[in-house]
């Protein structure tokens, strides 16, 4: 595969959320507003790219039977960096993302890419893979957050949409998240089956 394909495969063909169904907890929990979704994408992509670089660098020195704990420690260190940075410079974001920042550690996308891609490929390809996967993650989060924020809070980017309309608060809560992602997957299946 060329480098360009390493980058673009995360968007559709191997989209981490919509195709591989990885990393669902942060996806559904933080998409109550678009700004939360964007910050989550930023944080997760940073951790993903950095851990991909490191895993790819140390892949030849790590004994294979203890590789998972080592990968998790690398990931947890970068998550701590993100956590402290957000706490220091963006306290509002830190507060609204809450426990989902430390939970980036157990986001299966990151460990999955470390195990499946970065531990077998070079640094440059791993960076591109991380960026592409992060972008795919971000796109899925953005679409989810778009529907949930507009229907559940009657807002977009924090701005009021239709004055006087009563939003349906179930959309901002757990049921709305499940139903929205189910509809997204359905539409995706329809598109894929038309193509094939």
């Amino acid at each position: 595969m060329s480098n360009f394909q390493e980058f673009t495969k995360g968007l559709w063909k191997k989209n981490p959320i919509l195709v591989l169904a990885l990393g669902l907890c942060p996806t559904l929990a933080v998409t109550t507003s678009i700004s939360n979704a964007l910050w989550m994408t930023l944080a997760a992509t940073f951790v993903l790219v950095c851990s991909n670089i490191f895993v790819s660098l140390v892949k030849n020195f790590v004994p294979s039977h203890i590789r998972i704990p080592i990968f998790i420690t690398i990931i947890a260190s970068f998550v701590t960096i993100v956590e402290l940075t957000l706490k220091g410079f963006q306290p509002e974001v830190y507060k609204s993302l809450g426990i989902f920042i430390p939970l980036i550690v157990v986001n299966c996308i990151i460990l999955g890419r470390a195990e499946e891609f970065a531990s077998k490929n070079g640094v440059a390809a791993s960076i591109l893979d991380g960026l592409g996967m992060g972008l795919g993650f971000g796109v899925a989060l953005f679409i989810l957050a778009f529907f949930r924020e507009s229907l559940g809070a009657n807002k977009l980017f924090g701005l009021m949409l239709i004055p006087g309309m009563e939003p349906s608060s179930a959309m901002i809560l757990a049921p709305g998240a499940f139903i929205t992602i189910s509809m997204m997957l359905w539409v995706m299946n329809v598109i894929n089956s038309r193509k094939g």
Partner: protein
Amino acid sequence: MEIKVLFTILISTIFINNYVLSQMLGLCPFLGVSKKTDSAIGMGLAVIFVMTLASFFTFIIYKYVLVPYEIVYLRTVSFILIIASLVQLVEMIIEKVSPALYQSLGIFLPLITTNCAVLGVAVLNINSGFVTADFGLIKSVIQGFGAGVGFTLALLLMSGIRERLELADIPKNLQGLPVTFLTAGLLALAFLGFSGMKI
């Protein structure tokens, strides 16, 4: 110490703030292991066990190691390492002590390390202010146990529904994940009813 406080924590983690259906933690095993009721029970029991133990150990490490030495920022790293080694330890002990139990739980144990509900309950115990509260250790263990029971309840309900769904006639494009999410959404809607409960 009032028993009532502990009871409130237990009920609210099982029903009102159900980890899967209202806080959306631990979704990967929830979707992955809910195809058969047998494996749902096995996974549920393993999660209850690990969550209770993890709440106990992470609380002790946080209160008596991280806070006194002022290294609280190592929370995430230390918690995930505690959980990973705990899971490994539990796996080895069960294998030696009760091979029969190991047969039924064995394959689920390694999966628990990446269950975000376990790390979630450890972090939430700290965030709920149990560290400085009276009897904080007991409270966090109860919260861990309740979270595990809530997870098992959601998993069992889901697996029962999915076993019936196998026989249903579902449109082709909705089969698999989409209909599973739709079911989870309806279950979550039902659990929303508990949020009005006053205890």
